């Protein structure tokens, strides 16, 4: 066992790190699904857009302005998407909203294709984060060590926010029962905007960490991490934040161990096998609540 860990340490470290990045995206999925019952297919693309904004921002601005700018722009993008593409369809069937989400995803990818000319762009090195360090004999970037710590801090802050503040209470109420909470005077639109703000904020931070590691941004760079984060959210029980985080770490670590064994082709497939197994065995996920259909 210790031999296995020693041999695969770089992969396990990379897995923990990428798991943390998936977790930050997965929270956006799980919160939006919890409240709107919508798979926000565009979330992975928002994550990719954050990467592109960073590249374009650092081309002319110093780092200490670019990073906050990226976070603000990503949050704005998320809120605009919600207002333009999802809000008008609030009373429409679920399929229409999902199609709208797919449409937004298609739009963002095509815009990215247009602005980048289809060429992969190199992500700028963020000074302190991209430095090399050595952990237990394995050389890696500092971001690998920072990601899990930062993820856990952010998740704890988010959980506190949802448990202790009034907006958090409203979110929990809306995710429990949309109509009733509206009757109780909860401002639905504010709550939904807040959800998208938090989701996109975390996706922006996730993209800073993820692309510091992988360094190349293509128009479809967000699709796979997005899908994986969604699977993490389903695995943990959609709507549950700790569940999504655990799912994300699990996917990140296993995926990288599979790469370490040499089965790189199947590292993506594993995620979907996990998804299908969990949907078969426990469709509500490990922390999900059971939902029954009423006539």
């Amino acid at each position, binding site marked *: 066992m210790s031999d296995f860990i020693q041999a695969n340490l770089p992969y396990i470290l990379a897995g923990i790190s990428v798991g943390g990045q998936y977790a930050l995206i997965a929270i956006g999925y799980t919160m939006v699904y919890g409240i709107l019952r919508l798979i926000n297919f565009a979330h992975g693309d928002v994550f990719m857009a954050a990467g592109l904004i960073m590249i374009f921002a650092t081309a002319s601005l110093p780092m200490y302005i670019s990073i906050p700018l990226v976070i603000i722009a990503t949050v704005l993008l998320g809120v605009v998407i919600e207002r333009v593409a999802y809000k008008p369809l609030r009373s*429409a069937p679920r*399929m229409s909203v*999902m199609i*709208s989400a*797919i449409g937004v995803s298609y*739009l963002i990818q095509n815009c990215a294709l247009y602005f980048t000319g289809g060429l992969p762009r190199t992500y700028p090195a963020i000074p302190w984060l991209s430095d090399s360090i050595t952990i237990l004999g394995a050389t890696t970037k500092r971001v690998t060590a920072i990601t899990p710590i930062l993820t856990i801090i952010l998740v704890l802050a988010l959980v506190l926010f949802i448990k202790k503040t009034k907006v958090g209470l409203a979110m929990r109420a809306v995710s429990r029962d949309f109509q009733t909470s509206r009757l109780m005077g909860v401002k639905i639109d504010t709550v939904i905007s807040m959800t998208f703000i938090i989701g996109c904020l975390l996706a922006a931070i996730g993209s800073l960490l993820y692309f510091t590691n992988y360094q190349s941004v293509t128009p479809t760079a967000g699709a796979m991490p997005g899908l994986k984060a969604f699977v993490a959210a389903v695995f943990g029980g959609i709507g549950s934040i700790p569940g999504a985080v655990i799912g994300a770490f699990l996917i990140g670590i296993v995926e990288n161990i599979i790469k370490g064994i040499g089965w790189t082709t199947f590292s993506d497939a594993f995620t979907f096998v996990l998804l*299908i197994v969990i949907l078969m065995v426990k469709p509500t996920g490990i922390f999900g609540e059971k939902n029954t259909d009423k006539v």
Partner: protein
Amino acid sequence: MFKKINNALNPSLRHPLDEQNKRTNKVALMIFLAIVYVFAILLDNVLPANGITLMLIPVLRKGAIYALLCVSMNLLNGFTGLFSLGQAGFMLIGGYVYAILTIPQASHAAVYQYFDGGIFQFSVTEVFGNVLGPFLGNVIGAIICIIIAGLVVAVFAALIGIPVLRLKSDYLAIATLGFAEIIRAIFQWNGIGGITNGSNLLRKYTNLDNLVWNVGSLNINFGTTFAFLIVTLCIVAIILMINSSYGRAFKAIRDDEISAEAMGINLFKHKMLSFVISSFFAGVGGALLAMFQTTIQAAAFTSAMTYEILLIVVIGGIGSVSGSCIAAFLYIACNEWWLRFLDSGYLGSIPVGFFRGGFRKVIFSIIIMVIVLFFSRGIMGDKELSFTGLLNKIKQFKNRKALKQAAEKEGE
């Protein structure tokens, strides 16, 4: 007695006028198809190859194939209400099965150069070609391989369907999407490279331009005609299916699962039937797409391809076969031909700075978003295009015009 009940139940038999309309529509459709086929043969062989015909051939071929893919997706998403996103995976299997079966023996060494010439050492089209001559061999072999491709996909779909179809709406979507990704990964795996050629592309199999009939010194190309023929047959089969009692059960499931079950419809059986049939035609479409492209590579069958087809279905109208067909041709024509100038950097001869690579796709996605948000019924809604319907529309329009004019005269 039974006939009477049947008449009461079957609305089309109640009005003789409806029956007559139906017959007129059928005749009109046949005349239209006949014109299309004659045009397709002329286009491939007689018409001079200039800028327009050179664009028209691929647009018509790809448009027809996409029409089939969209109709097959519409059967599942629009008529049965199952939101499945596995289309690209099924197309991939269909295309690969077709390609693997028709690569000529002599080309195996070149195609499977990294896998010692591959495992299968025969080609169905060649086997038939040796007996029937190259043209008939290609046509019959291709048809047989397309059917095999469809059947293989149908079997896969049945296996996938057993676990997946028990899931509800968005879980079903994400599970089918997941299966499509798994299929893509497996087909790129070098471990079965002897069959699938790993992550390399398959080529040199029988494609649409191989369907040439040599009569004396005449070479008649049936490429476009062949694509149209297969697509027409498949779409007609789907329409017959939709209008049968199975089709009515599908619609009942779409409208309300619980009431459908209460009416005695076996939910799982009908969902499975719809899923398998839709996948069969997706496989056929995938095989045709492989024939059209002349090369096929698993990496291209991403979820973006499924999204593209889904969005065409939405443009045409969810639950309308004719809508899907119209939208498919429109989409392909715009994408491959009419809107190409948006990428070229010029409007006419005037250089426009922001007209560069990818601008066409941006405009497209904006149009799609406008349709999704403001015209969610698409081109046809859930109605079908028919000859008599069109005539009525024109009559109504004329009547309205006449009334308007009369009103204006009175006003004077």
